[in-house]
């Protein structure tokens, strides 16, 4: 198998995630798009690890997954806090700095 087929698939997923982050205004959907971006990065890490013959790629993917778990936890908590204060999770309305 070619290295490039994995890298290109990861690039497609990454760009889909970027598109989602830009266009979505529902906070939970933005988080889903971020998950896709992180997965694209994981494919790259594992692919290069396989290419170089080291398990370090998988180890880094593992750390990325662990960080993603914490990121989703806190991200959703922030979304819930915005929802409680504004009764809406429309991110395009969250544009004031003063609470």
């Amino acid at each position: 198998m070619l290295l490039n087929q994995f890298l290109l698939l990861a690039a497609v997923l990454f760009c889909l995630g970027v598109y989602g982050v830009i266009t979505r205004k529902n906070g939970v959907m933005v988080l889903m798009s971020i998950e896709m971006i992180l997965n694209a990065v994981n494919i790259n890490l594992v692919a290069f690890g396989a290419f170089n013959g080291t398990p370090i790629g998988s180890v880094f993917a593992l750390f990325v997954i662990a960080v993603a778990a914490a990121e989703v936890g806190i991200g959703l908590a922030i979304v819930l806090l915005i929802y409680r204060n504004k009764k809406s999770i429309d991110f395009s309305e969250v544009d004031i700095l003063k609470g």
Partner: protein
Amino acid sequence: MISLIAQITTGDDLLVAQNIFWWFFALVTVLAGIKVVTTDNIVHAALYLVIVLAGVAVQFVFLGSEFAAVTQVLVYIGAIVVLLLFGIMLTRGSLGDDQLVDTERRGMGALVALLLFGLMAFSLVDGFEDVVLPEDTRNLIEVEVPIDTDIDDDEFIRTQRGSDTAAIGDTIFESYIVPFEAVSVLLLAALIGAVVIARKE
């Protein structure tokens, strides 16, 4: 791209089967990914995300990284998607109308994504045009296994190729012990943050 097509059509039958499977799973992953970012129904988006994550797990298997694939299923599909569904259930009432999930920036978003993809695809094709992965991409280490667990003697130990998991464990505990401990602090911080937010009612 030509080398990709050439690779599919040449080689033995099983290699052809492998490439067909790869393209099938890649196609399913990308189509589900498109649905994640375009569907109007937020619950459907979460369920399509499950397909994307499963597709990525299949890619990990193709790359010979079984433990990463299992982790992907266990943590992403088993836990993070559940958390996202919880988030949907806790906020659903707000955007009751499913039509309101997108902003008016679709054209701009598509432009940015396409430009980004063009740039990445160009540099990838330019940089790694015909780089071929090794035949067996697994990272295995020799592990010592007792032949008979009742006898505690060095003579009754044979070495065999361990799994991907053992190699990952060795790497973590030899080189990445500080990140490993830092992860636990990060998870602790996430839990305390969520408790503080959930309490303030």
